[in-house]
Every structure is written in structure tokens, then in C-alpha cells.
């Protein structure tokens, strides 16, 4: 399913360890919040799975839940990723929306 949400990725390599940061614009609704206008519960809407692929091979997979904040910033560390390698991140949420972004490690 297509999405209007942005995914941004940034990497920084230092002493053979690559810091990867991913920023996603996502409401991350828990389902417990009440809409101040309609007084109804806002349905839950949150990212469930986020995976990282290095040159097409899955290297990190995370299970996220409602405990993660709105517009989450997720960071991972990769060891031994070579400069020029392709890194791809994909995420999918409980409503079936998904997004992905690709970058080259520098």
C-alpha cells in the first residue's frame, strides 16, 4: 500500500562501525488517546516491523510497538559495512501501510 509518510535515512562510518539513523513521519497512535473534538478513541496506528537490508541481505530486523514515539528516530549500528554498499530500510505498520528508503554507505 502506498503511503504519504516520509522515510529518511542517514549513515556515518567511524572506526569500521556504521551508524545508521532512520527518521519516519508517522503518528504512532497507541489507540488509547481520545480525540479532543469528537471525544472518540483514535484507532491505533503504529509501525510494527522495520528491517534493514545490506546489499539485499537482511541484516537487522526490529519489532516496534506503541511504546515508540511519534515521528520515530531509529538508530542501529552495523559492523564491517563497506563504503559503497547499498543499505535499504523498509517498514510496515498495523494498517498495512509501508515505506522504504535506500542509501549508499559512505
Amino acid at each position, binding site marked *: 500500500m502506498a503511503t504519504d509518510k*516520509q522515510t*529518511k535515512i*542517514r549513515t556515518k562510518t567511524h572506526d569500521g562501525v556504521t551508524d545508521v*539513523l532512520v*527518521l519516519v*513521519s508517522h503518528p504512532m497512535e497507541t489507540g488509547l488517546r481520545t480525540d479532543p473534538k469528537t471525544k472518540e478513541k483514535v484507532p491505533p496506528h503504529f509501525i510494527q516491523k522495520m528491517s534493514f537490508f545490506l546489499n539485499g541481505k537482511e541484516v537487522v530486523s526490529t519489532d516496534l510497538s506503541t511504546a515508540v514515539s*511519534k*515521528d520515530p*528516530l531509529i538508530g542501529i549500528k552495523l559492523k564491517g559495512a563497506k563504503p559503497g554498499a547499498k543499505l535499504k530500510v523498509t517498514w510496515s505498520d498495523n494498517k498495512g501501510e509501508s515505506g522504504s528508503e535506500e542509501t549508499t554507505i559512505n
Partner: protein
Amino acid sequence: MKKIFLFMAVLGVFAATSPAAISDPATDLKNFQAFFKKKFPTVPFDEYSNGLYALPGFEAYKEQWTMYNEFPPFELGLAIGEKMWEKPFKNGKTYASCFKNGGKNIAQGYPYWDEATQKVRTAEMDLNACLKKNGEPEFTDLDKNQGARVKLAQLTAYFYSLSKGQRIKIDVSSPGSVKAYEEGKKFWWSRRGQLNFSCANCHMELAGKNFGGNQPLSAALGHTTAWPAQRLEWGRLETIHQRYKTCNKQVRAKPLKHGSEIYNHLQLYETYMSSGLPLTAPAMRN
């Protein structure tokens, strides 16, 4: 009797003209910036653009702020602003057509005194005017409609980002602009609210201190360079007028309307006082 009247009239004239003669904007600017140089002798002038993070004693805040700047969350809002800026209107024109130099490197002159309408104009006003000129719906009801206000803030943030690093240069040479400037100055220095604070109380005398434990007070110098900004508390880009409103609320005064004339004048005064500082908007703020 006649002589007494004449004498009083002369006195009256003196009373009316002398304060204006003592404090012209250029002298005010010199005194204002000298005040901070004396208060924080270790802070280099350009650093004031970084707001409270430049001040001594706020190292812990600065550390946090530097971490945030690795991947600042306002980039999401800024990207939306960029999209709005680039997207053509129905008549094929874009926002860039309404501004000199396509909107690049001109934000350092905002807000400015407009001779034609005899009013101070902010970037937000010009962006809205651009929409009107091209027959598009404007951003309205900015006090209540958070969605519209945030969108305008994102757009303004992108407009300011096109002028990043430019040094603030405000023209207050015409008599009309001096009058607006004086009004903004009056607002800045007058006390208000249940707490009876003026803007100057917190952001000049108490600058560099923590208010109520968890509200670091920034120096007035460099206030406007970072706006529209994203506050950690808000989690979204907001306009400077929204900040003025919340500032007024914090001293328990009734906030004015978004885009009201007196806020424009205050913005003119504040921005003029930061003359010479580079623009850093958009930025993260506490």
C-alpha cells in the same frame, strides 16, 4: 497669561521631541548589543544565532541539542514546505514568482516596512499574499486551525532556509518604520500578565538562567534568527507569532491574535536588535 501659554507650548514641544531624539534605532541597537557583550563576554557574536545553546551554563542543553542536530526532526516538516514551495499553482506559477531573486537570499530583510500599505510585512504575510494574487486559498484562522498554521510555518521555514547564513539587515530609515519600531520597543519593555514580566525581564536581565527549573531563558539577541523553529515540547514547526503567544501565556497574560499588528512590530524590533547575525532557521529549540 499669553506668555505662560507660549512657555507651556514650548515645553510641550520639547517633551514631544526630546525622547525621540535621544533614542534613535541605531543607538538602541548599539546599546542592546553592548548589553549582551558585557553580560556574556565569552560568547562570540555569531554564536548568538544558536539561541540559548550559546550561553554559558547551558552546556547540558547544548549537548542534547547537538545530538538532535545529527538528524533533526524538523527535516520532515521542511520537506513538506519544500514540496509546497515547488508545486505550481493552478495558473502554473510558483511561490518563487512572488519574490525577488526567486525567494533566495532575501529573508534577512524580513519583516520590512512597506511604504505602499504603511504596514510592517512579515514573510508569512507575503506568502499568503502570493496565494491570494494567484487565486489560491490562503492560510486562514491561524489561531484555531493548527493544521493551517503548521503548514504556513513549514512553508515559511523553507523560505527562510533559502536564505540560511545571510546576515540580518533591517531597514528602519523611514518615519513610518521608526514609528512601528517604537511601538514594538514599547511592547518589549512593558510589563504584562499576572506575573508582571516584560519580555526584557526574562530575556535580558534573567537570560542564561533557568526559569522555574525547567525553562532555560534565552538571550534576546538572536531570538528571531531561528524561527520558524521546532520546539521539543511541540514536535512540529511553528511560526514566531505562535511563540510570542505562548510566551505571553507563560507570564499569564492574555495572548494577542496570530498576525496581529503589534506582534509584527515586536518582530520588527526584535529582528532589528539582532542585526548582523546569520539566519539559522529552521532550528531545534527547547
